[in-house]
């Protein structure tokens, strides 16, 4: 027994490092190295040498500015809508009614769909002769002359359409994370809230939400990270350059016009900007939610 324990002790000292080192090496080789290369590339001119020109070029592009605003609006509005709706749905499904399992099953389909398939669903749906207009006609809500022209929508309507499509796919996955949190939730706490005279709303605000907070933080951070990187749906529905987003610019330079002498640099520059925005948004959110937590305690 003694012998086994001492053997284990010496093993336990170095074993965790052996287990972790392969992943670390992998990250150094295939994450750190490319990220540094991207960073250096973003500061490299077409003829070599360090320069800020790529950043100047990227930032002065009017489509970049538009893309920045679009991305901020889409991320802000869609994360809010998705969170509120997903929370309501999670609270609903958590009541464990007859058929809630089936509903959960169905709700998982949109989140499982590849973005390309989601793009296909809405691209074929939103064209003037697409299924959305067809459905409205079959339901008798519009006549053939009253067809809605989604694709030529302008300004905020275009963004709203993107936000709704994004929400369609994402709400289920946010809901599932929240639901997982709700199911690990001590029921007695809620009952105690009602016993002490709270109504449904105060119980939600004072008991459910604070306990659910770690899960909420997880869900919102994950959503924020992917919402800032929105591009595929935008491009599949409107094409390049029509509704620019930060990520759309990266793909535009990285894939669409990759033959320009400086397109690679511009793609790298844009991708670094996206990376900075994504990680700082996530870190700020984490920091703010941690701070408010420590204040409460």
């Amino acid at each position: 027994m003694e012998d086994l324990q001492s053997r284990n002790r010496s093993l336990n000292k170095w074993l965790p490092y052996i287990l972790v080192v392969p992943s670390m090496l992998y990250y150094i080789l295939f994450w750190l190295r490319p990220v540094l290369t991207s960073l250096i590339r973003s500061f490299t001119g077409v003829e070599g040498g360090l320069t800020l020109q790529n950043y100047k070029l990227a930032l002065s592009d009017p489509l970049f500015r538009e893309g920045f605003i679009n991305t901020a609006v889409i991320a802000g509005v869609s994360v809010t809508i998705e969170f509120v709706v997903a929370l309501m749905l999670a609270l609903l499904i958590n009541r464990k009614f007859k058929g809630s399992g089936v509903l959960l099953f169905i709700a998982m389909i949109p989140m499982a769909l590849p973005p390309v398939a989601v793009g296909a669903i809405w691209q074929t749906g939103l064209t003037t002769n697409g299924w959305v207009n067809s459905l409205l006609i079959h339901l008798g809500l519009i006549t053939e002359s009253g067809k809605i022209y989604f694709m030529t929508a302008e300004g905020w309507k275009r963004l709203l359409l993107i936000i709704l499509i994004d929400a369609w796919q994402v709400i289920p996955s946010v809901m599932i994370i929240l639901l997982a949190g709700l199911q690990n939730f001590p029921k007695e706490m809620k009952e105690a809230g009602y016993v002490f005279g709270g109504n449904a709303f105060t119980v939600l605000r004072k008991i459910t939400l604070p306990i659910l907070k770690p899960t909420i933080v997880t869900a919102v951070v994950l959503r924020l990270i992917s919402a800032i990187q929105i591009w595929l749906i935008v491009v599949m529905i409107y094409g390049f350059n029509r509704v620019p987003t930060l990520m759309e610019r990266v793909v535009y330079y990285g894939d669409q016009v990759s033959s320009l002498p400086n397109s690679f640099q511009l793609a790298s520059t844009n991708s670094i900007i996206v990376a900075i925005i994504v990680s700082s948004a996530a870190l700020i959110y984490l920091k703010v939610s941690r701070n408010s937590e420590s204040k409460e305690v």
Partner: protein
Amino acid sequence: MPVNRSVKKLIQKTTFLILIATILFFILTPIFFLTSLSFLSSREAYQFPLPILPSLKSEFVAEKSEKGYLISIYEPSTGEYESILDTNKFEKMSTYFRRELSIYTSPEKLKEILSQLDNGDIEKVHFTMRKSLWHNYKTFFKVTGNAKAALIRSIQTALVTILISLTLGGMAGYAFARFSFKGKEQLRFGILFVRMFPAVTIALPMVILLAKYGFYDRPVGLSLVYSVGSIGLTAWITASIFMGIGIELEEAAQVFGANKLQTFFKITLPLAFPGLAASSMYAFIGAWNDTVSALILTQSKPTFAVVVYKALIGSTGKINLTAAGALTMAFPAVVFTLFIRKYINQMWGGVKV
């Protein structure tokens, strides 16, 4: 008073049911239409309004004309026959039937049917033909040329990604679950930070790196990029799975003389297996669904996601064909997600950022 309460309950119940029905409507309608669209013939797909359900067969009427034969198709939406062809070339008819109506019929067969008109006894001949429902799926693979090879490449990429991330991520996850060691928290946070970075930031410079090692434009190269994201996720999930398996079992095995390695492979791994399989599905879906890295890291050998994307983005493709491609793409991802749903709670319940 009790009447009042039962009325209130009824209202509550009705509101609840309406809510559930609305949710189902919004989730299922788009999926239903994509599916229906993938089974429509080209002719149906370019009608307005689109039929809700694809037809299974079509009725025709043919008569003699100056050019040869005038063929009309029965239109269920209007209840009338519409002329579609006026020719004496059976080869051309057969092609039209296949392309526009998804009906596979040989020129000989058409000749046989239409020859009834030739001796002048009858004026019109009615006939019905079955539609091939899988026409769009077959055609998508045929016209995009590289779709089949792309599908195989997508599967290869996903499998290699699972292999890398389960091996490396599983090892790290085990370390997180069983040991406390210096730098553990920093590592866990580091993994999160890596995931925050958009895949493109890595994909762009990887073009050069992979080209140097001959992995550019190959499934392995893509797997290397996808694994960066999925190793961390796998480590997180597997850590919570290993934590769920009591350390007592491992200790008991060691008391009976098994060494660490034997304990792991004989006790822990079999117990963790279902959870590990589920977490590997996340790696699968991540690799399967990605478009952006695949766009940048492949040239002549795209993945299936890229093929579907390009078929739609060019908008030269027919929408019913693209729907078939998109559904082919969606099918495995949906099946796997439904398979892992048992583990969702285990995965997300314990996660704290």
